[in-house]
């Protein structure tokens, strides 16, 4: 097990380097740091002096990939690529381009509100989706199932933006049950979190319940279910004792892979409800064209994704004894 994990972590290294090179090419090679500086300082009437200052303050005044002036190793280390990339690997994200804040500290502070919305959404969504899917499978080949399937397709075809706008309008403006947007620390956060979580769950029912339904239906066709029925178990008993347990394997592993990414939060939700999480942090960075933050978030996202894949493989061995890691 330990060997396997270590090997996987080593495999992750070239992937992360690849991600780094990709974002580096996107941000710095296609557009030079001069372009970025001009973009940040305003398009016109920028003196060369101001551009140089901006670059120097943020460490973009080095050559991009190769420093001819340096000696030995310095030809590689004294470059923008090396300076801006190596720190990421031990989560030293540096400072942001626009207001020179410490990105690492911001991330640490902002990841909790993200989690406060994302985690309940995931857990509740999972419960609701599985329940709906089980109902549809239990009453399969009936009008109940048919209407359930139709409803799922309809729910699926509505853009998530409309769920948010509609929810805010209904619960925030008409019924005045919860505040429309905002956030507060501690337990006061609950009243701000309820609506985003509810909307997150409802907007996910369509695709979620449909997906779980196909999983259950695949399982229902199998031989052990027929055996269970032949033993004389009722349909409900078969479904809850046998089918659910076995269908849990793909469901669980599908959930585990997104667990680490919950920290990243949801871009849309957080910006609509002005929750100070990592999602809105990213959106702000995108709209203020802060490359340092976007690059850090891309890197963080990739790390969490790779970590999620590792967790998935480990969870496979835990829930399914037939799977061995090699």
């Amino acid at each position: 097990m330990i060997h396997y994990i270590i090997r996987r972590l080593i495999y992750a290294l070239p992937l992360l380097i690849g991600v780094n090179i990709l974002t580096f090419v996107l941000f710095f090679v296609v557009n030079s740091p001069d372009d970025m500086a001009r973009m940040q300082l305003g398009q016109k009437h920028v003196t060369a002096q101001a551009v140089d200052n901006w670059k120097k303050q943020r460490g973009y005044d080095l050559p991009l990939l190769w420093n001819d002036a340096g000696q030995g190793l310095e030809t590689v280390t004294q470059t923008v690529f090396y300076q801006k990339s190596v720190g990421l690997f031990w989560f030293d994200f540096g400072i942001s381009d626009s207001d020179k804040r410490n990105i690492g500290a911001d991330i640490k502070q902002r990841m909790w509100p993200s989690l406060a919305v994302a985690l309940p959404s995931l857990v509740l969504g999972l419960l609701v989706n599985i329940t709906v899917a089980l109902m549809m499978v239990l009453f399969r080949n009936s009008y109940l199932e048919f209407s359930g399937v139709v409803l799922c397709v309809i729910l699926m075809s509505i853009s998530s933006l409309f769920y948010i706008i509609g929810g805010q309008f209904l619960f925030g403006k008409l019924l005045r049950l919860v505040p429309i947007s905002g956030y507060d620390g501690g337990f006061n956060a609950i009243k701000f979190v309820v609506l985003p979580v509810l909307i997150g769950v409802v907007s996910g029912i369509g695709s979620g319940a449909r997906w779980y339904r196909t999983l259950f239906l695949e399982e229902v066709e199998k031989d052990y279910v027929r055996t269970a029925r032949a033993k004389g178990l009722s349909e409900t008993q078969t479904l809850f004792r046998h089918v659910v347990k076995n269908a849990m394997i793909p469901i669980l592993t599908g959930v585990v892979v997104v667990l680490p990414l919950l920290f990243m939060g949801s871009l849309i939700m957080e910006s609509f409800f002005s929750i100070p999480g990592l999602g809105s942090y990213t959106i702000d960075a995108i709209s203020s064209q802060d490359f340092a933050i976007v690059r850090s978030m891309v890197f963080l996202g990739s790390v969490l994704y790779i970590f999620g894949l590792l967790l998935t493989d480990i969870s496979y061995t835990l829930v399914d004894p037939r799977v061995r890691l090699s």
Partner: protein
Amino acid sequence: MMVVLWTDALIYLLLISGSGFWLYMRGRATMQRPIRKVGRSKTGMVSLTVLLLFVCIGLLDSIHFRTDEERSNEIISLLDYWASPIRQKSEKTYSAPFSAYLFGKELMAADEGKQVWGYPRLKHGAAHLADPDSELADDVLIKTLTGLAEGLVFSLLPLGLLWLLVRKREDAWLKQSTGKTVIAVVVVLISVVFTAIELSAHYHILGTDKVGEDVFYQAVKSIRTGLVIGTLTTLVMLPLAIVFGILAGFFHGWLDDVIQYIYTTLNSVPGVLLIAASILMVQVYMANHPDDFTSLIVRADMRLLFLCLILGVTSWTGLCRMLRAETLKLREMEYVQAARALGVKQGMILYKHILPNVMHIIIISVVLDFSSLVLAEAVLSYINIGVDPTTYSWGNMINGARLEMAREPAVWWSLAAAFLFMFTLVLAANLFADTVRDAFDPRRAEHE
């Protein structure tokens, strides 16, 4: 004078390759059964009809030309040309659907030089009515009925001709129940289109937006954007996914490793962030090279194209992985082994034995992806990393109108229009995708 924008050219290319692909499919015996199955499905064919209506509108909007007028040298499309009455009749600001008055109160000149605080009449909406309060409902009803009648007449003529053609053939598709349903839907759709044309000539049937532009026109114009994103992305993604997926599965060794490395790397970057990063890059590039993008519409078009490219680059990995797995399975099959033993060239094996047998995966994933791409456009436009703000798109409509829900009373029509159009398109696409998947997936076919 005709102008071909980049996306136009690619749409034409897509149309040609799509027709070519359709001919190729029709000629293959293995594809007959699923195609017939789709043809028998009522939901599938009805949703396809709705999709085709959207496609027709999108195509009309993809033929651009320069106006001949001396002063304005703008590029407009065939759709714009036909919709000129709606396009040019803009009001001052918001007005509700079918309203004869502006949404906000203003100071108006009244009799005897006095000024009154009230709702002014619209310049164009319901302007032909002398007393809108009493006449409006009747006039709308008459116009609706006229439109419906026109639509019926217009659609019955070609249908009658069609009927003469198939009268003798007992097994004609049009005589089956699916065919009849589709005919009914076509008649309804044509009638609705005619009614909309009739009404929109005199009213703002979905209201006007902040700068007084007709919302119905905006929603119709957005169709092209939605379709372009849903289809051109596929055009970018397919070659990458097919070539890489099949090669990785068929040839073991370093090629497989390299391709796997590429797609795992791309996959591990959160999709939205990669799109954001790329769009940021494009923005900076455009800002620094203003000479290359002279006209507004060319600039917006380039950005749309870039968006499709980027979405394509971020979304090919899923299909690629599926194709690789399937090819891995197929290459061990007896018929592939036999072909190899007989000395068939590798390129030929790939083309003759592997490609046709993964075709169903490709078709299914293309139709499944379409609706999610249309939905993604709206979300991306909301974060400002989608299409250009000047491009008509449902995302931009939602983005511009979402804050107006907080008004009292709420300005709901822009959102409603975007919702209506998007929902129709996505629902039709989803239903069609389900039918196609049921027909083409061999695992589902066994249960028949």
